[in-house]
Each structure stands twice: as C-alpha cells, then as structure tokens.
C-alpha cells in the first residue's frame, strides 16, 4: 500500500489502459479520480464501483481534457474532494489514422488537441498543487509510435513524440521541487482502441514483436505504478518503453 494517502487523477480512465492504471493505482492505496469524456459516465462509474468494492476510494469526474476550462475545473474538483493532488496520469488519447496525403485538417487538430494539448493543460493545472507540497509524480502515456513511427499515424505519432519532449522539459523544470515527470511508451496493447485493427493486421503485427505477443493493459499499468512508487524516486525525464521489445 505504498500509495496510501496519495491522491491520483487518471485521465481517460473509463476503459482500456486508463482503466487498468486507475485500478492498479487504487490497489496500491491511492484515492483515484477517474476522468472520463463528458456523456460517457457509465463505464467510468463501473471503474469507480470496482475500486470501491475492493475497499478503495474513487470518484468519477467528467472533463473534455482538450479544453482548458474543463481541465482546471476537474483538477479543482479533485483537490476539493480528496484534499490534494499527488499523482497525475495523462492517459486520455484518441487516434484518427490516415495516410498523411489524405489526412484532414480536423483529424490532425483533434488528435493533437486531445492527446497533447490535454497533457499541457492537465500538467500545468496539477503542478500548481504539487509545487505547494513540493512533491508529486506525473506520468504521461506516450507510445511506441512516437518513438519509432508508424505509417498512417502522423498525427498520433506527432502528439506522442510531443509528449516525450514535453516530459523532458517539465522534468527539468520541477525536479528541484521533488516532482518526477516521466512517460511510458506502450507498444501494441489489446484494448478497445486496438480491437478495431483487422485480424490480419494484428497477426502481422505480432510477428514484429520480439516477445511474440500483443501487450495487455496490465502490462502498461505495471510500469506506471512503478514510476509513481517510491522505487522510482531517482527516476525523472525518462520514457519507459512497454512494447515487447519493438523499440530498442
């Protein structure tokens, strides 16, 4: 229970990797704010219930994280509810895949806004509180795509590579205040988002992964929990690839 008395906010936590992270962080003792996109509260409520049934504390909080006012209201409500904000997991993200030549402006904008602008807004808002207590952990979800690229995902890859640059800059800014800022770069993970890839494409994919399997949300959650635990006290500005060896 090394996260006892800590308060965590996980964005996009109603499904997939975010959900696994919320559950894992709660399992280790933290109170968890489960953020979800407005209007999609059912799944978030299930996550909150699951945490509560295991004896943990959690509550759902709606916010479109690509919008600054909603982010600031969300962070304020977390602090109001649980008294502090010690751990921020920037997980919310979408894909709008298309080859660049055919990529529409709005598909570029939407992905950058939801995936990267959100990290800016959420981290800036959360840091205010972490600076006051001179401690905190920020972990953002990047992606193997942001590290080695993938055809058809220029927008997604750009947003995830952006998260990596952001992570390193902010890590340098706030290290002196005991705040560690890192990123996790998952490879192909079995979730609602990747289930939409065709079976044939999934098979081909598996052939390119050294460890020979597609990852699970729990694989990623394990790395995130490590980065927010005392064991990672001396780690900041890093990107931990959780991808079965795709990027080395």
């Amino acid at each position, binding site marked *: 229970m090394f996260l006892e008395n800590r308060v965590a906010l996980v964005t996009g936590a109603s499904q997939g990797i975010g959900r696994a992270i919320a559950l894992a962080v709660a399992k280790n003792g933290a109170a968890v704010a489960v953020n979800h996109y407005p209007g999609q509260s059912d799944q978030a409520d299930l996550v909150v219930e699951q945490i509560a049934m295991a004896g943990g504390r959690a509550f759902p909080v709606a916010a479109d994280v690509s919008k600054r006012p909603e982010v600031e209201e969300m962070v304020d409500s977390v602090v109001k509810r649980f008294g502090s904000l010690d751990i921020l997991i920037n997980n919310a993200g979408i894909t709008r895949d298309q080859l660049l030549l055919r990529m529409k402006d709005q598909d570029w904008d939407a992905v950058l806004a939801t995936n990267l602008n959100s990290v800016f807004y959420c981290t800036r808002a959360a840091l205010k509180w972490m*600076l006051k207590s001179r401690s905190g952990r920020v972990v953002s979800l990047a992606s193997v795509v942001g590290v080695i690229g993938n055809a058809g995902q220029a927008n997604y890859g750009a947003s995830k590579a952006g998260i990596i640059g952001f992570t390193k800059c902010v890590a340098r*800014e*706030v290290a*002196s*205040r005991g705040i560690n800022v890192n990123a996790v770069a998952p490879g192909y993970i079995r979730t609602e988002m990747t289930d939409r890839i065709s079976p044939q494409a999934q098979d081909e994919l598996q052939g390119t992964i050294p460890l020979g399997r597609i990852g699970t949300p729990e694989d990623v959650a394990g790395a995130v929990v490590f980065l927010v635990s005392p064991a990672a006290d001396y780690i900041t500005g890093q990107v931990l690839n959780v991808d079965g060896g795709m990027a080395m």
Partner: protein
Amino acid sequence: MADLNDQAIFEKVRSIIVEQLGVEENAVALETSFEAMNADSLDIVELIMALEETFGIEIPDEAAEKLLTVGTAVEYIKANS
C-alpha cells in the same frame, strides 16, 4: 482590497515570501531583492502566482519581470488592486 495601506500590503507580501522562500521575517525589508533571497526562476513564478491569488490581481509577464525587490512588488499591488 482597494483600501489596504502600504504597511498592510507589505506585511502580507512579507508573509508570502517567508512561506515561499523560507527566509526569516526580519530578513525581508522593502529594499530586499528577490535575488538576494536566493529565489530561483520557479520560486519567482510561484511567488507571482501567490501574489495574484492573495490580492486578486493579474500580473502579466512584462510587469512580473520588473518586480525585482519587495518594495516594487508592494507598489505594483497598491497600484493595481
């Protein structure tokens, strides 16, 4: 906040500085510079934010850059609140 006199503003600013920079109260005078109190850039940002919050004002970057001593901060607050 419009009726606060200079002394009241100074005392409030001083208490924020003491809390933020961890210096002794008697080390903070109007002429004291933030640099002399070993404030790094993050300290200054936090200080500015605390002043904005406490006095209900906004301090744009260009103005913040010029607040080099406790006295200039007090003057700014008096002029803008």
